[in-house]
């Protein structure tokens, strides 16, 4: 904010003010990046930027799905555990079937199973809400606990790391000089942006989240819409989980601990309302990049890990407050 007031004087004042109202997080992100380029040693190096993008990709793939879930008026707390479970499923298949059907076939089979499990769990979470009136907060809280247990049961508590040669490319490799997960991240962004903006399904998600009863009385199958957004997020979680397993070279039950909070934080920083009905995939992209830059920048500046937690908490609250204030100003 000080940045803006410094650059403006006199009569030009309301143009930046309007910009700040319309693109608050974009401007704050730009300010942050500028600050880090100047203050954080090594932030602007290509290697570091690519590293940030790779980290952000794993989070972002899920966050785009989570945006749809939150817009539809629900929540999914199980994505961190889902990432661990997906990685373990893929690793288990690679471990058990490589001899029988070959390494890559086993990995592909495992990925297909992880994808199906991820989608089904999400979809059923939505249907649980319909059939038994169990809030998704509760169902996914239960899954949050249970899935990590299942992941550890699958691996027997030890990392499974029998992967075919070249598997590490998915999470750790570079294509044309850019980390491979970043392509998946970009693809997911484009697909989700398109889905939410240019399909009738996307419109229905906004309607259901904005006013469930009005949507129902408009003939929209509200439960199907909710179940599908949750299923979609489950599937994206499986994709991210596979990429992470590839990156660390193992499937373990302790991967991605606490990731669900980062994912939800990114969505909220991006301006999506937890009350449902409002939000944009673009905003989540900003939110994800913001979180990635902040934690990378603080690490480079030698800020202690504990302080990083405190700062992240402050940012989440600050972003929501900013959105509320802007809502009133607009």
């Amino acid at each position, binding site marked *: 904010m000080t940045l803006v007031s410094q650059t403006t004087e006199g009569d030009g004042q309301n143009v930046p003010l309007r910009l700040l109202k319309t693109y608050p997080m974009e401007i704050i992100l730009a300010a942050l990046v500028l600050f880090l380029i100047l203050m954080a040693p090594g932030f602007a190096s290509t290697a570091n930027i690519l590293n940030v993008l790779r980290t952000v990709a794993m989070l972002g793939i899920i966050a785009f799905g989570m945006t749809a879930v939150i817009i539809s008026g629900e929540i999914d707390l199980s994505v961190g555990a889902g990432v661990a479970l997906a990685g373990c499923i893929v690793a288990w298949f690679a471990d058990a079937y490589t001899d029988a059907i070959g390494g890559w076939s086993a990995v592909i089979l495992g990925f297909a199973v992880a994808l199906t499990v991820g989608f089904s769990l999400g979809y059923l979470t939505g249907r649980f809400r319909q059939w038994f009136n169990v809030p998704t907060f509760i169902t996914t809280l239960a899954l949050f606990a249970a899935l990590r247990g299942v992941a550890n049961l699958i691996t027997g508590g030890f990392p499974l790391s029998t992967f075919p040669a070249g598997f590490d490319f998915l999470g750790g490799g570079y294509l044309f000089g850019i980390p491979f997960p970043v392509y998946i991240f970009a693809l997911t962004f484009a697909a989700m942006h398109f889905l939410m903006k240019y399909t*009738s399904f996307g419109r229905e998600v906004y309607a259901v989240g904005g006013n469930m009863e*009005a949507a*129902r009385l408009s*003939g*929209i199958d509200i439960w199907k819409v909710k179940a599908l957004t949750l299923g979609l997020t489950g599937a994206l979680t499986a994709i991210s989980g596979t990429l992470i397993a590839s990156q660390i070279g193992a499937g373990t039950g302790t991967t991605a601990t606490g990731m669900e909070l980062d994912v939800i934080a990114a969505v909220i920083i991006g301006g999506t309302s937890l009350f449902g009905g409002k939000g944009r995939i673009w905003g989540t992209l900003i939110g994800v990049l913001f979180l990635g830059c902040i934690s990378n920048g603080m690490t480079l500046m030698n800020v202690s890990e504990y302080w990083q937690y405190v700062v992240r908490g402050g940012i989440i609250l600050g972003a929501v407050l900013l959105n509320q204030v802007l809502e009133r100003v607009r």
Partner: protein
Amino acid sequence: MTYSQPRTDAAQGRLAFRSVTKRYGPTVALSEFTHEFAPGRVHALMGKNGSGKSTLIKLLAGVTEPTSGTISVNGRDQAFTSPHDAFDAGIVTVHQELSLVPELSVGENIFLGRLPHTRRAGFRVVDWKGLHRRAAELLSDMGLTIDSRKPVSALSVGQQQVVEIVKAMSFNPSILLLDEPTSALASKEVKQLFALIERLRARGVTMIYITHRMSELFEIADTCTVIRDGHYIGAVEMRATSPAEIVGMMFGDAARTTRPPRQAIDRVKPLLEVRGLTRAGHFNDVSFDLYRGEILGIAGLLGSGRTELMRAIFGADRIDAGTVHLEGRSMTGATPSQMRAAGLGYTPENRKEVGLVQSLPTADNLCMASLGPIARNGLISRRREQPHVDRQIVDLHIKCGDPELPVSSLSGGNQQKVVIGKWLNTAPSVMFFDEPSRGVDVQAKRQIFDIIWQKASEGLSSIFVSTELEEVLEVADRILVMHHGSVVAEVDPTRTDLTQLYGLCMEGASK
């Protein structure tokens, strides 16, 4: 504390209005109202919707202040600026909606916000024993056998209403306002309530009783005061009057409404056939036919089951028995999305809450029910939607400025038109209009009626529901009268006047 003790010195409350006027901006809700309500009697207050009844109650409850004039209690002028002031003057209101907390016990509800306390080991704690003892005293004092420890949710609606009155009486009021206390009650529960009212009357409490049920007046009231269009019309002794006289006072010489010329309706093959439709507790064994191009009015008081019937046919609520056929196809138990696909549209009575998604733009709301047909292969864009948005905005004269702004920025009338436009975009063959004129200005109301007539002449069949009976008489080709969840009469609006229709709505078929 004294509030638990029944007062023996007969609580007297003489309530007088002197030239009381209440304006809301340019509209006069109550005009120079002058009347004295004699103490210790049950005064019925009658008037059709919008006559000023609720304004009167609000003034007495201290919710709003009069623009001019004075209200006095026992000869002392009062200037209520808050509900608390009304309380202090001895006036307590039992509102139409129950204000009890269902999860809490009867006793706790009665003393909510003023729980008795006691000291235990130096701590100030709630005196549960004392609370329930006092509650039990109050209940038995009113001749009731309700366990004060029971949660309110375990009681029937009638018992809850009674508890509400007991709660009101625990303040020892001299004047009690009862706003449609029987609207949700079954007849047996009404008896119990009346017994309680008799008891309070014997104790000298002045009661002002609002109801829409004419039969109740003669059973429980001593006098009936009628207001119309904010004016005091008169007060009669119940012993010396008749339902006809009261209805006459309520409507005055209501001029017959003008109807535009309508074309003849071919009543051979029904488009919508409803047979024996029942939803327990809401409506019972309802059968009717709706023909192509016909506007079928449903008249009935609030709570007669009109809205519930339409919601159930549309598939928004479960039905317990009966069948629905649309264009010959069985649609019994269909979901709203199946009904929509079959050609039925429904504009709900509470458009703000469930008719629109307020956070979304007008354009999105207009296309909300027709995303499937507008999209090609599931893909949609503003360019594809634009013709549908523009057509409704032009056809329905929707004043919305920029259709990309949230629909919440529109006026009530325009919002209603957006709801209608949303459904016309689905090219329906049958439309249900539930209270389409509620809360819209006169001009918008005319426009909405014109749309309904216009669409009917193009072959759209509709059901039209309105609390305003004048409107039903004006708009509909044929009228079904609902009373307590049953269809009790079918009338021809060209051969019926307001008084007759109102009588049917209030009394059912019996008179």
